[in-house]
């Protein structure tokens, strides 16, 4: 009976098979574990130190691309095989499904009736036509308007619901391919980069994360201000925000204050708040009273610089704290009395300007303020494939929900004159969730009995 299958047919069947799908899924699940146990993309030294690997072990594992396994040839091949499996099984099964949906069997003969898991029979009175009208009305009312076919004095009815749900599996499968496609588009035409912008300055290129090369972005981006806010009474940060301005040819186009979880997008590029840091040395301002002359001056300068004071000495700001113990902002300073012999460093305060009077040196100093400018660190992403990925995600949700919760339900009826009365046969099936359909069918059968016996 069955012919020997050729090698190509066997190969084709293998790529279409459900067994291959299960094996690939289990292989993907188990191999994926490796990359979660061994940290990815570290330097050779880190692997040898933190995992206690010998150099030869490292080299062997490196040859297997274990340290960047999700981009390794074998893992990508497995993903590729997964895609091939999805495509093949669709090519094999889809034509049959399209035929079932587009050319339904309208006439159910006795042979077909025998195959139905749900069936019933009623013998009633009247004419074939009057029974047909009753059944058409009942089906139209309770299920779906039937297609009527007349053949050899018999009448056949066919009605169906949820035919499109046959395709939901293929929607789900192709959505995975769409997600792969989106990821590939992003890899080829997109990039990930970063850029640091000092407050008040602007940039027109970003730095690729992969190759550390500058990428011109075609417009200017300025950071007007960067700020960290804290939760009340603590050092727990509440927000990191940057005021960004997009400029084209020196003209302001767009302004936005970005924060973590709220980026700025312009011309296909998106800028994400990611880090920050001090830019350059802080600039200090002090109020200094020269005791001898009674003169009071304001001096200003960066950390480590010598600031000229009346009377020939220099003031050197050395460091500051936003909050020194419970005394508020404070600076550590030193005085150079001209012979380059530094004295002992001491602390001056902003909130207690009188404090330094008690020290009793040549000067009484208080802090006015310290200005530290910051840079904001931004992640930059360009990903033209991301919408393709979201489309795939939408389809996978719709497809899988529809695959689980809808089914193609079909009901056939044949009406034929018998020796005594009219015989009505009723049969039906569902391509999924048969138990629920069986219950539904029993209800429908009761309705049939009631309608046709009255």
């Amino acid at each position, binding site marked *: 009976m069955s012919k020997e299958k050729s090698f190509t047919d066997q190969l084709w069947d293998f790529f279409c098979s459900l067994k291959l799908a299960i094996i690939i*899924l289990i292989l993907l699940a188990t191999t*994926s574990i490796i990359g979660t146990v061994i940290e990815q993309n570290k330097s050779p030294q880190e692997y040898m130190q933190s995992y206690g690997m010998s150099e030869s072990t490292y080299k062997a594992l490196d040859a297997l691309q274990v340290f960047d396994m999700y981009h390794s040839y074998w893992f990508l091949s497995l993903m590729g095989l997964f895609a091939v499996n999805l495509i093949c099984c669709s090519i094999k099964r889809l034509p049959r499904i399209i035929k079932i949906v587009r050319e339904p069997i309208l006439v159910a003969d006795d042979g077909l009736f025998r195959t139905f898991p749900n069936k019933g029979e009623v013998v009633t009175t009247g004419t074939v036509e009057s029974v047909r009208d009753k059944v058409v009305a009942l089906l139209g009312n309770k299920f779906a308007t039937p297609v009527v076919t007349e053949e050899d004095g018999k009448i056949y009815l066919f009605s169906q619901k949820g035919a499109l749900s046959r395709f939901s599996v293929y929607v789900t499968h192709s959505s995975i391919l769409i997600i792969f496609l989106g990821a590939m588009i992003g890899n080829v035409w997109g990039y990930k980069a970063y850029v640091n912008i000092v407050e008040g300055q602007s940039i027109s290129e970003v730095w690729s994360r992969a190759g550390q090369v500058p990428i011109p972005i075609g417009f200017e981006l300025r950071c007007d201000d960067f700020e960290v806010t804290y939760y009340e009474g603590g050092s*727990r940060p509440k927000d990191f925000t940057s005021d960004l301005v997009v400029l084209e040819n020196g003209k302001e186009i767009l302004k936005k204050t970005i924060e973590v979880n709220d980026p700025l997008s312009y011309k296909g590029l998106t800028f994400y708040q990611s880090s920050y840091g001090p830019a350059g040395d802080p600039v200090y301002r002090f109020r200094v009273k020269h005791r001898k002359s009674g003169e009071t001056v304001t001096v200003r300068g960066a950390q480590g610089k010598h600031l000229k004071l009346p009377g020939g000495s220099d003031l050197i700001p050395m460091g500051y704290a936003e909050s020194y113990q419970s005394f508020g902002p404070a600076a550590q300073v030193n005085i150079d009395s001209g012979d380059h012999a530094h004295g002992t460093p001491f602390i001056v305060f902003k909130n207690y300007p009188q404090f330094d009077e008690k020290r009793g040196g040549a000067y009484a100093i208080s802090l006015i303020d310290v200005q530290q400018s910051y840079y904001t660190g931004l992640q930059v992403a360009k990903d033209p494939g991301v919408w393709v990925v979201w489309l795939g995600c939408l389809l996978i949700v719709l497809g899988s929900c529809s695959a689980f919760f809808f089914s193609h339900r079909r009901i056939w009826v044949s009406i034929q004159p018998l020796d005594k009365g009219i015989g009505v046969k009723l049969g039906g099936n569902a391509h999924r969730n048969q138990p629920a359909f069986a219950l539904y069918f029993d209800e429908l059968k009761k309705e049939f009995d009631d309608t046709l016996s009255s």
Partner: protein
Amino acid sequence: MTSSLLFNITTVAYFAAMVVFIVFLTAKNKAIGFFAILVCWVGFIANTGAIGMRWVEAYAMGYEQAPLSNLYESVVFFSWSILLIYLIFDLKYKQRAIGAFVIPFAFGGMIWAQWSLDATIAPLVPALQSNWLTYHVITCFIGYAAFAMACGVSIMYLIKINKEEKSAEGSPIGGILGMFPSSKVLDDLNYKAIMVGFPMLTLGIITGAAWANYAWGTYWSWDPKETWSLIVWFIYAAFLHARFTRGWVGRRVAWLSIFGFAATIFCYLGVNLVLSGLHSYGG
């Protein structure tokens, strides 16, 4: 009524429900089964109230955040989700006995949270201040809860099928196992639970990816948490396909469902406690 009092009531109710379910299995008395469900409802309402109160308490402290911000809050929400799924299944399929194998997961979560997790309400770090947090956590945990349910049912299936195969054809099975639904029903419930869990997990992964893309500009970075969620997804995808394959139905899919839940728990807790990565704040 403070949230902590309500959480105590929840834990006690889940413990009581567990005990009553066991009594129900041995006594085979329908009234006791009904009482067990009643206790479950009491616990569920207390659990709901407790989560609600915690939300109010956080707002009163000036933190505008949903109570899904740390490990403690996620564990009690996990218990809540298990009860939600179980009670919906009970209303729909009325297979009371499975409570004995599902409620222990919810009780385990509550007792662990209350005994050893930090229950202080702390404000959210900037990385977590997003509406995506709520969508992501809710979808993931409904999924996890459905998998917990599937796992409990699968354990019952494995116990029952052994007995069914040993006993003579057609003769009724006595003892506690007599109260179990038939292996056919258990297999179907296993599938139905995963049918709910799988789309939810898919949504959970997608909302996580969408959030990562919104916050960092990458929807997928093979971080251990992401990877483990995908591993779980692969296992249940294999489960769904295995059901259509001869040689896999029955015991093997029941084991797949149990492995799937073990992987789920590792994804949820193991990754945070053992591995390091983006989810290190413990949610």
